[in-house]
């Protein structure tokens, strides 16, 4: 009888411990999903601003339609990838695809900013200036959102790999999360340039 009680107590304790670990893993996973949705919100904001910017710029630079089309196309691709990744943020290949599309859009925007330098009258336009300001803070926010996402992913991955929660994670299939990072070296560089130009 006594042994049964002790056994029961031990089982209850272990069970409670496992439930605790499982719950904290779920909490971390939701945290990083939420952090991703923050990036998503800010990216969406950015993608909504870009067509306005292009439309406003079109009035001034008719001869640069190639650049404008390039920006629009890059934006549309990135938007599609964003939708795909937002639907399933745990799929790291989708997130990677989005990061690459982002990088392309970044370099297109960089080119756009450079072309814009040649048209001083655009810079004088009030609505253009407002849009540009808006885009700058949005880009800042994208940066912070990505950073928050990386922090959340780090916390989640650490919790997933630590002993003993790695056993729970393995049993219940908690997949590793991926950092929102750009794969190839030249992609990384072009992003740097474009953010510098736009900000």
């Amino acid at each position, binding site marked *: 009888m006594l042994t049964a009680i002790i056994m029961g107590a031990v089982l209850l304790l272990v069970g409670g411990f496992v439930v605790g670990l499982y719950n904290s893993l779920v909490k971390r996973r939701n945290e990083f999903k939420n952090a991703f949705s923050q990036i998503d919100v800010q990216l969406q904001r950015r993608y909504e601003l870009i067509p306005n910017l292009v439309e406003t710029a079109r009035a001034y630079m008719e001869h640069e339609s190639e650049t404008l089309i390039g920006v629009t196309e890059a934006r549309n691709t990135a938007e599609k990838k964003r939708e795909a990744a937002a639907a399933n943020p745990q799929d790291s290949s989708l997130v990677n695809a989005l990061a690459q599309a982002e990088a392309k859009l970044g370099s297109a925007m960089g080119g756009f900013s450079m072309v814009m330098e040649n048209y001083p009258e655009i810079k004088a336009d*009030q609505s253009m200036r407002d849009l540009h300001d808006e885009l700058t*803070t949005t880009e800042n926010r994208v940066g912070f*959102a990505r*950073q928050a996402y990386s922090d959340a992913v780090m916390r989640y991955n650490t919790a997933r790999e630590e002993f003993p929660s790695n056993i729970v994670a393995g049993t219940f299939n908690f997949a590793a999360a991926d950092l929102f990072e750009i794969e190839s070296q030249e992609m990384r560089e072009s992003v740097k340039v474009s953010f510098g130009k736009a900000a």
Partner: protein
Amino acid sequence: MYFFGKQRSSKTSSHLFLFGFVVAMFMFMVVAHVAVNAFSMLLGYSDSMYVSSPQAKAIVLIVWFAVLAGSYFRYLDVRKGGSALARRFGAVPVSDKNRFSDQKVLRNVVSEMAIAASCPQPEVFILTHEHSINAFVLGSNDKDRAIVVSQGALDNLDREELQAVIGHEFGHIAHGDIPINMRLLILLGGLLAIDEIGQLYTGKDWRRDWHIGYVLGLPLRILGSIGVLTANLIRSAYSRQREFLADASAVQYSRNPLAMASALAKVRDQRSCDAMSSRYSGELAHLCFHIGTVQSWFNRLFSSHPPIQKRIDEIDPHFSTKERATRRRVAPKTEGVSLAWQHPVTREGGTSRDSLPDAVALMVNDTPSCLAVLFAAFASDAPGKREDYYNAIGFAYTPLLSAHVKHIVSNQSADLENHKTAILSYATDKLRKEVQLENRQKLMMNLERLLVVEGEFDLINYAIAQLVRRQLDVEFPLVDQLAETDGKIAKQGNVKTFDSMGAEFALLLSLMVEASGAPSDKLEEQYTSALKSYTKVNHPRRSGSEPGIYKELEAAFQTLYVQPQSIREAFVQHCVEIMHHDGHVARAEDVVISLFAASLDCELAAA
């Protein structure tokens, strides 16, 4: 700094302190119980320390009741939402569309940090009358939280440092310090209540004769005091750890340890940090960005914040060396730069002393003489009034300054008249760099009061005073009003048509025309022709001598300021044309146009 590690270690030690707090509370109640029993045994009411007499039971009951009631009342106080509390402290909410660019920056910084900390966006408030650097968060639940920043923080910190300070506050939010602090406060409120009930029995004055109240009151007071003392000690130690934690979190969010360190260094170097500390030192202390700490060990023990230097060292032990190195490298450039971004007003670049004639340059060779020149520029032409003016200066400042002003007016008034703009611009530039903001504000207040008393507050003096105010970097007098009305303007849809702004244009144009000093029938003609290009409505011509016109003028500036840049520039250009219309630029015209240009944030092209 490796902020994740720092966060972990300060989290662990703060948890220890929290555990200690709970244990101490429990111990306190047990000791209280035993002490009351012992006391009643001593008085002969019971035979044993462990068996309570009815009297002892009554006291223990009172103690428990006091703790619970005190906690409950504190809870009622604390339960209110963050924005309600912020308003109670006199903070002004920052509206969405604001004419002040520093408030726009603040909003952006707050939303960026909210994203970085993955917290919901709190409401943003500014303490407009607080000139030291500080910030705090209010409200214990996520939905109604307010972040309050002092005007001093906006004025003295650059964007990155502001980001670090806001990040620190978000550190408190993210780690749930506010609810914990509120709970500790509630418990403390209970302990304080014991002391207060004891005080009811003993009476407030300790030196009164011994009376029967002391039998019950004294033990209660002793118990309460010991409890409050211990609880405070532990709470402070806990709170200091949480400050380190919040600092480390701020670095995590902004990824900019240098900005955090330099924000702290600015706080360390500011001189007038005690104003806020004394006002909010009680309950708010634990939420503030910093509290001035006195350097005795006793005060340090009860201080809610670690010493600033220690906080800087935690972030970057080599900060002071780096700071000195950067300062040396960029010294010639950065002077005044940190102030420049916060005011949208264009400031004419400081006039160099070389451009002034020698005799004049001597007038402004040190700070006191700059001050004297400033006052001399406003001296009246009538000798009687002038004497009053000197006396008033002597009263407000020192007789020495008054004599100095007198000397300048009687000997060098011609020089002063001829180079007034250049001299004033040089003197104010120097004063801005060398005098603290607070004293500059006092200076402005004194100056305006003097002018009103003297009856010299005409359009020219008003305009010069406003220009001096801008040069001295002293904020607008009606800041509260502005902040409020800005919200209204933003709601109404801020861009108006020319017609609806007719009254404002009419006011400005009539002052402009009046400044040219032509005979009145000509004025009328000029005014109507100028107004025609703005609106069809016939606004009557105004005059600078009407009472209350300056308030209206400020309001007009404010309305026009939120209009598109192009409209403002066109208007100022138009005024310049009016000025040159009669082929002669009066000094009054020159001053008025500079005021318009500065108030409307337009560059004034050199004529």
